[in-house]
């Protein structure tokens, strides 16, 4: 009988192998258990962050609504009501120096502007490219505006998508006018059957994108892009200004 066949040697080796395999098994179980627990904790943290972010977005959307209401109230109070009061007083006192006809025309224009701000007219009939052209037209008086539009498809973008994109462009233009101190703005639109891509850049002072901006503008953009199930990328630096790229893929889920 060979030495390894000796029962004592055999039992000893069996015990050693048994213990090694068992220890290995325990180590695998403990390691994976710990790893998965860590994974679950990280996932929970991520979910909590997402919920917190969504809450912030919701909060922003409420604030944006309130800001819009305040702006409309202020437009109505400062411009329209002021003019209508003057017309009322002039007609009551029979004063001829007030051009009531002109003031009425102004009031109608103001009311029309407020109405258009609230709901853009002919939204369904007008293409997104035409909308952008209309929006950037007044800017040409103060900025160098570069507009590049590529329409590969005659696809009709739905009214809702158009409205959200128009609001985003309005927000970007407002931000640029208020904060960027830019001299040049560029708009690049590309429409295909599969997606709409829009790039808006300026040569302004920029800001640090790592720091969360305090204003509601960017959150408003993010919220609207979420509604469109789209993605966006914002880059900004003091040297190169700010660039915003929006991508909306079809069909929108």
């Amino acid at each position: 009988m060979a030495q390894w066949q000796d029962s004592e040697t055999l039992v000893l080796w069996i015990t050693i192998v048994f213990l090694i395999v068992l220890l290995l098994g325990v180590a695998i179980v403990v390691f994976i258990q710990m790893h998965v627990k860590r994974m679950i904790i990280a996932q929970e943290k991520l979910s909590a962050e997402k919920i917190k972010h969504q809450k912030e977005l919701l909060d922003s959307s409420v604030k944006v609504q309130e800001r819009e209401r305040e702006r409309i109230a202020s437009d109505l109070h400062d411009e329209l009501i002021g003019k209508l009061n003057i017309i009322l007083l002039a007609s009551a006192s029979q004063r001829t120096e007030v051009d009531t006809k002109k003031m009425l025309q102004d009031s109608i224009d103001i009311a029309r502007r407020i109405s258009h701000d609230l709901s853009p007219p002919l939204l369904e009939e007008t293409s997104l490219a035409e909308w952008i052209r209309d929006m950037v037209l007044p800017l040409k008086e103060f900025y160098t505006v570069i507009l590049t539009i590529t329409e590969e498809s005659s696809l009709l973008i739905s009214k809702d998508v158009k409205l959200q994109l128009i609001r985003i462009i309005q927000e970007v233009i407002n931000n640029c006018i208020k904060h960027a101190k830019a001299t040049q703005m560029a708009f690049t639109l590309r429409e295909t059957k599969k997606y709409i891509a829009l790039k808006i850049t300026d040569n302004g002072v920029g800001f640090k994108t790592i720091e969360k901006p305090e204003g509601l503008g960017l959150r408003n953009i993010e919220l609207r892009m979420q509604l469109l199930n789209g993605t966006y990328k914002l880059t900004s630096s003091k040297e190169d200004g700010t660039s915003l790229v929006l991508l909306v893929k079809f069909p929108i889920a």
Partner: protein
Amino acid sequence: MEINVWLELLLLLPTVTSFIGVIIGGIFFNKLNDYCKYIYFYLVAAFITDLASRYLDIIINNNLILVSAFGFIELLIFSMIYYKLLSKTHHWSFKPVIAVLLLLIIVDIIFVKPLDIQSFNSYGRVLDGLTIILLSLYFYWKVLKKDVIVKVEILRFNGVVLLFFLVNTLLFLTTNFLVNTPYNVVFSILLINIIATPIFYIFLTFQLWLNGKIQKP
């Protein structure tokens, strides 16, 4: 009490614990989810096999056929459990490989003449244990790859299955080498299995209770 009485009581433990599992699993059966229903079937199979082995021992003084037969049932049930747990993420070869292994165990039962104590071996049982260990490791791999999203309860189940079958398979594997070893040494090695088995059944019963308590009918 004499040592033999203690040993008799110890040998009764797997029967008692599997019976408790059958009762508790039966109470919660309708509330159990799919993989726990298979755990219940496993406990029922274990209990019936235990009773049958005692009966065969009394009648023909040889119950070795049940070692491989239980290996077949064990592999069948655990492959079903892992099939459910892996849901749609398992490899296409899962079913064919299990089918071939089950066939091998049947071949082992037919050709190894289990009624002949001299020629008996526990290869069928080792094959069954190794396959379950591999299934358990495969499941861990899928969890780490994030292919399967698991609850802590299922992860714990997989860990216990891996450890139990490591012990169980090593013990069955070594019995083939211990033919010349004195009976008391072999018995002390088999004693580990006698203790590990009821602990495993208690854990499975706890798993059934936990699942039945939480799940809605």
